[in-house]
């Protein structure tokens, strides 16, 4: 299970589900200058950028991934804008070709001796920060289930879909346990859909990352999210270890009271699919930002 090679004939699917409720306009605890929605949009754009780059073979982007980015707040909608907004699950090559804008900047990297040089880099933008409305988590998860059912009917073989759900609060439209379990019961011949949840907080509270039992979780909402979080398959555990994130066999893809670094790691681990993990040399000489 969770070992299928990801190919163009048998691509996998990645769904990024983002809480875009009004509370996402609040800052992180201890970082009053940075709104949660701004940071999450930045990380999601970076994640899409990484997926595109991983699939780039010389001048072509190969469709190893099919991607959906959904937001929920005032309504449940595609978080993409422009020509991608009207589509459900989109081949990664189409994502590559339709950013809203491409920002240019410079990045300092080692010159191989003792100094640094600045090189031009490009930052494509697909989604803008949004924070409006309540937290219709059940409606959003229902939409995810519908999307996946349609996608799985056409892609019954291969590495199963991964859903990365990020939220900063409790569901405003009911208990998400049942719909979460229904999503986790879908799958391909290589395993069930992986549903990972990252809860972030504006409050100063102890974070719990990738637990393997419920004992450290503070309340019923946290325990519900834990129960609808899939155990991390072996390749994801290896990716977590590469990032220096502590996990054990049985760790769930679940973060509670996460901070900005938790979000970055959550997306990196959640998209580290079998056979597609970047070699460490890819970025090892880049100066840490």
């Amino acid at each position, binding site marked *: 299970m969770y070992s299928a*090679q990801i190919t163009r004939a048998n691509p996998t699917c990645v769904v990024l589900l983002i809480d875009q409720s009004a509370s996402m306009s609040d800052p992180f605890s201890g970082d009053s200058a940075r709104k949660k929605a701004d940071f999450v949009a930045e990380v999601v754009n970076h994640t899409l950028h990484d997926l595109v780059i991983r699939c*780039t073979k*010389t*001048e072509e982007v190969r469709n190893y991934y099919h991607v959906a980015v959904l937001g929920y707040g005032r309504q449940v909608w595609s978080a993409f804008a422009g020509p991608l907004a009207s589509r459900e699950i989109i081949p990664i090559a189409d994502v*590559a070709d339709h950013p809203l804008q491409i920002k240019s900047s410079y990045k300092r990297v080692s010159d191989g001796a003792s100094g640094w040089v600045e090189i031009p880099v490009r930052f*494509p933008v697909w989604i803008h920060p949004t924070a409006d409305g309540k937290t219709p988590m059940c409606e959003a998860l229902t939409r995810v289930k519908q999307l996946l059912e349609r996608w799985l009917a056409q892609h019954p073989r291969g590495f199963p879909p991964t859903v990365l759900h990020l939220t900063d609060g409790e569901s405003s439209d009911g208990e998400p346990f049942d719909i979460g379990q229904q999503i986790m019961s879908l799958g391909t011949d290589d395993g069930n859909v992986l549903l990972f949840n990252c809860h972030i907080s504006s409050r100063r509270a102890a974070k719990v990352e990738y637990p393997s039992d419920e004992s450290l979780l503070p309340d019923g909402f946290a325990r519900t999210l834990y129960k609808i979080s899939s155990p991390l398959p072996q390749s994801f555990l290896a990716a977590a270890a590469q990032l220096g994130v502590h996990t054990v066999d049985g760790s769930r893809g679940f973060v509670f009271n996460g901070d900005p670094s938790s979000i970055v790691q959550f997306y990196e681990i959640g998209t580290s699919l079998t056979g597609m993990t970047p070699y460490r*040399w890819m*970025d090892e*000489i880049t100066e840490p930002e």
Partner: protein
Amino acid sequence: MSSVKQSAGWELRTQQVLLPKSGFEESECEDFIGINEQTGRFAVADGATEAFDARNWAQRLAENWVRNDSALTSETFHDWVAGEGAALHSAWSQLTLPWYAEEKARKGSFAAFVGVELDLHSDAPSWKAIALGDACLFHCRAGELLKSLPVSSSADFNSAPLLVASDPVINKTSADSLVIDSGRCQPNDILFLLSDAAAAWYLERFERNDFPDILRDNDEPNAAKFFENERVAGRIRNDDIAVIRLEIQQRSTS
């Protein structure tokens, strides 16, 4: 199959297998084999799947290294790689690339590489090899594995090794990881050059004292089928496969 290397007292039997990943086209194979019996050089390069233009980089490394006859030292190798890298990057600069290709090209290309140079012109034939990454050379005698480089255990294939980089800055930083070694041969010794999936498969069997000389017992098409079946059975990882088998034989005087 060929058996053409001529020298005073020795000849060479050369065989090879090159297979793309299952489900992939031959044109997508990122392993390359270089064979040049005039220079006595043989090489396998394995382009890193996620790198930009990895196929061209691996092809350039394998095919051009066997053509050149420069001394086999760390400095010479790095200078040669720098030249090949510059030529590759120069070819890219002629292209108008979309943003994603430009980003990927900025990091350069990467490949594992192993090359061996045989000297069969003396009474005591010998080899000298150079390797970076997880493409391997095995030296075997009478069913025993005498030497394996740069990886010596099947358990060591899961790490992310330093590879031959087309970028001159990264190329410099990999100097300490380059492995250069040499050995002497006896009649019927066998050298294998392999990319990582096949190397891991062979090493696992050597570790069980089970010398799997597939190419001795099969012609090249049947050996390729054998490896495909091993993949289906889940005993070999679904990756590109490159194998060169070199058997050093004493020339018959009759």
